């Protein structure tokens, strides 16, 4: 069986390219065109991609995992119920929570707890987002859209409860889109520890 051979011309071997000088002129012309367009051309025609970082900032993508925040309830208290899911899920072990019981006369007493201490070490955090995945209450989020501001002091990277509560989401809201059903609300399913199912 005869093998079919298709001869392909070697690229870049025309006489004009072998002489080299026309190609140099072409290359120089292109570079000069680029230079004049970007240096002296009208503003609209400049194609400079550089972002002057501290003055100009590129918006992070929507799903960017930024610094954590603790979401609020409508009354401004943290949604967190101190279940320790996030600190358990955290592979970097950067979340420290000390749970506390509500006062006996509080309607939430015996129903859920709250964090008296909630500290995230942002230096230790690897920004994997597992804590957000683990949270059953949508209480911790990484949708702030900001990265950790630089500092020379390690203590600045220990974010306590107040700091975490003071950071809004990217939409400027301290709440989340998921409504919370407090005990006593009409929408509350009525499941709690004291009254049973």
């Amino acid at each position, binding site marked *: 069986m005869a093998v079919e051979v298709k001869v392909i011309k070697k690229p870049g071997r025309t006489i004009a390219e072998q002489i080299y000088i026309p190609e140099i002129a072409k290359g120089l012309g*292109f570079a000069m065109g*680029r230079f004049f367009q970007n240096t002296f051309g009208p503003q609209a025609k400049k194609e400079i991609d550089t972002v*002057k970082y501290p003055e100009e900032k590129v918006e992070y993508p929507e799903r960017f995992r930024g610094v954590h925040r603790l979401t609020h309830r409508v009354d401004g208290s943290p949604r967190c119920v101190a279940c320790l899911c996030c600190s358990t899920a955290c592979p970097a072990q950067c979340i420290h929570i000390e749970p506390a019981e509500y006062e006996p006369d509080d309607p939430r007493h015996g129903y859920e707890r709250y964090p008296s201490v909630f500290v995230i070490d942002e230096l230790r955090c690897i920004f994997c987002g597992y804590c957000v995945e683990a949270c059953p209450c949508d209480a911790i989020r990484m949708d702030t859209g900001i990265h950790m501001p630089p500092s020379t002091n390690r203590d600045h990277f220990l974010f306590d409860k107040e700091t975490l509560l003071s950071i809004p989401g990217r939409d400027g809201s301290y709440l989340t889109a998921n409504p919370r059903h407090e005990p006593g609300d009409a929408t509350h399913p009525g499941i709690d520890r004291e009254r049973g199912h």
Partner: protein
Amino acid sequence: MTTTFLVVSSLVKVLAILLITVGGFAPVLIWAERRQSAMIQDRLGPSRAAITLPASAVTFIDRARLPMWRLAALTGIVAIVALVTLTFIAVKGSNPLPISTSSLTASLVAFGGASVVLRAGYGVHGMIVRNGGKIMLIGLLHPVADALKFIFKEDFVPPKADKLLFSAGPIIALIPAIAAFAVIPFASSLHWDYLNQVLPRTGEIAGPVVPLQVASINVGILFIFAIASTGIIGAAISGYASDNKYSLLGGIRAASQMVSYEVVLGLTLVPAFMIYASLRLEDMTMWQHDHMWGIFVPPLTLAAVNFFVAAVAETKRVPFDLPEGESELVGGYLTEYSGMKFGMFFMGEFVEVVSLAAIASVIFLGGWDVPFLYRDGFEFSLPFVAASYSVPLVHWLVVAIQFVVFLFKIIALIWFQLMIRWSLPRFRYDQLMSLCWKGLLPISLLNILVVGAFILSGWLDGWVAFFEKLF
């Protein structure tokens, strides 16, 4: 001319050259090279180095902007009124107004200048405020930062290096590059006694003459070659003294490349000596001033191209930067150098770029010659028509214009060298050598023959006469 006058004027000239090359061109080139490459590649390049002003100063600057703009507009209006009045007087032929013409001219210059300065100040102040009180000067502070870094960096010497030669290398590389400027005429001679007068176009002028050139020596261009070949030693011994095989290879490459291209560099300029009939750079410039720029004499056009290629190779820059060849030789003969010693190599390279641009512009682009500018001022004449329009200028102004135009020619050639540097890929070493010995050398030898025939056949005189009739 007294000896004191000679010594003082020479010292001033030397200082001026140092200021222009080491103090001016070299740092700006460090910036320009990066900035220009960035502009080609759609980047912004170095622009971040900044002096930050305190917030109170920024508030003050912001508040000063509006009055500045108003003052600029006001002075601008006054200048326009003066200009309109002057035009009116010029059209009418006489001055019926109570204000004299000279005071009107003075007010036009003063108010116009003030308006431009204030408007520019308004813009600059706005820029500072927009940058949040940071003075960035489009990145021109980067060379300052670089120099500070070079000075405070550790001056490392390899333990087994030859300490004396290691330290001498950068000096030997830098000094010749600067010394080449000694014979370059920056403008026509300055007639010290007639600074504020319009000189006659031709003829001898009595009184002290200051040539704007450090040394007017009869070997002229040969001095440049002699000095430039000293630069080879700098690269070679720094490569040898570094106690590093990469450095040694880089030094050898540098030496062989520069020796080869030195030959071509000399031979490409032989046609120029033949046509200008002198080795003195000031005489060459004078010939071009009297007749035409060297690049417009047909055989010299080829010589100019050859010279430029050889000159780029002589500076050891891309596409001929094989002595540094970082992909093969780490950094070539620069590998072991750091701090200010590296800075001196760097500076020497840039000063060499400037000096080669200066030589090329003196020999091929007329040096300080400005078209239509003569010793008594501008005279524009049209080809084939008897009409001409002349603007007489005082002597110092003529010399200043020549000097500025010469600097512009240098800058244009440097710009072109940087353009080549960022457009072309590096040669292979055998290609480099065959380009020199099989390409440029035969062409320049042939060119000498052609120029000899050109002169002997009388075509040169014919071409010059034709060109002079044209302009």
